[in-house]
């Protein structure tokens, strides 16, 4: 990340404050999805494994509703060309990635707080492990969502294509994150979770490297 990418992030941040392009849809989705889950559970007590799964389901679909905006909004407004004329592709990807990382972390902190307050099964016994899962899971989600957003922004049916294309790419990340979250609920140690942690860190590194390599080809007509 350099000063140019940070300047692009600031531009996106200011633009988001004025247009509320992504934040509104994210907030509404989090609210609606959590409410629907709460209503459907009723008075039932759900297991910790189901709680961990539902936690990441809300995160996944919330990300689908908001993170594609990084590139789709530029394409829809016709400002992609402007960006191409002022910055190198790597700067653009870094700026957009930084924006999505901030967005995904803010969104998921809200989801975590909501789950902690509303779900009895959401009891974290190993906080450090949960934070590690949360950090690497969210980083992976932001990286993968950013490059997928860049790919689908050039396509016709953006709305439907995004979750469809994201699902197979994000599946290993979501499965591992669910497993790590469950382990943090059960109080497992880092030694016991080392295999899952290795998978999630490798996933993040591979996605980041592949994204930077691919972005030039995706971005240019």
């Amino acid at each position, binding site marked *: 990340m350099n000063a140019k990418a940070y300047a692009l992030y600031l531009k996106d941040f200011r633009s988001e404050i004025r247009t509320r392009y992504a934040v509104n849809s994210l907030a509404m989705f989090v609210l609606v999805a959590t409410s629907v889950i709460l209503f459907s559970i009723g008075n039932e007590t759900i297991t910790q494994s189901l709680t961990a799964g539902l936690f990441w389901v809300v995160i996944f679909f919330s990300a689908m509703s908001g993170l594609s905006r990084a590139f789709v909004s530029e394409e829809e407004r016709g400002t992609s*060309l402007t960006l191409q004329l002022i910055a*190198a*592709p790597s700067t653009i990807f870094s700026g957009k990635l930084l924006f999505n990382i901030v967005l995904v972390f803010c969104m998921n902190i809200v989801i975590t707080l909501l789950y902690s307050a509303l779900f009895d099964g959401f009891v974290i016994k190993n906080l450090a492990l949960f934070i590690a899962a949360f950090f690497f899971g969210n980083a992976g989600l932001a990286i993968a969502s950013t490059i997928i957003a860049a790919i689908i922004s050039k396509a016709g049916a953006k709305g439907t294509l995004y979750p469809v294309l994201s699902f197979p790419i994000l599946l290993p990340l979501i499965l591992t994150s669910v497993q790590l979250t469950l382990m943090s609920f059960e109080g497992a140690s880092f030694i016991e979770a080392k295999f899952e942690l290795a998978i999630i860190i490798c996933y993040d590194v591979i996605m980041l490297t592949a994204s930077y390599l691919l972005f030039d080809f995706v971005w240019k007509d």
Partner: protein
Amino acid sequence: MNNYFLHVKNISKFFGRRLIFKDMTFEINNNGIIGISGDNGSGKSTLVKIIAGITSPSSGEIVHQDRGKEIIPEKLHNYIGFVSPYLVLYEEFSAYENLSFFSNIRGIKLNIERADFLLEKLLLFKRKDDLVKTYSSGMKQRLKFIFALIHNPSLIILDEPTSNLDSSGKDTVYQLVENESKSNIIIIASNEQSDLNLCQREIKLQDFKLS
């Protein structure tokens, strides 16, 4: 004296199976205004986008050199100013905010004196703090000239530069273009005879169609 050199080497462009132009070769190494003319759909915009590095040619190569050194694609945007009707600036920001963000993203400090000079010249100074979405189409077009010139580019590409402009706006733009052409290379892609009258040399796209 500009030390910029542009070499278009045997470029061809296809959209699917449709040929736009074939084996186009030319060089530009002197300051001045070069026109690109052709019928609607002949590929004027495609050619200028290829020169600006926004679109890839199907075959061939474009070489940009500054002071004898080849410019790598990642740095090309620093040397190019671009105006076109399909270029869109951020409507949720004011003219000044747009220029400030663009300079920061380029990694340079906004040259306030030059920004004010260009805003004054293009009659936008009094509206510089208004959101771009409140501008008329002619004002947006004039703002695009400031966007293109603010970083002192060596190669200025103008695609349909006078679209949406009234006669006084056209005169201002022509005056600005003539001034800039003394120290830079300017490429104008247009069908407007008044635009092409400024050019010292003209490239006709119909000469590069498959016969």
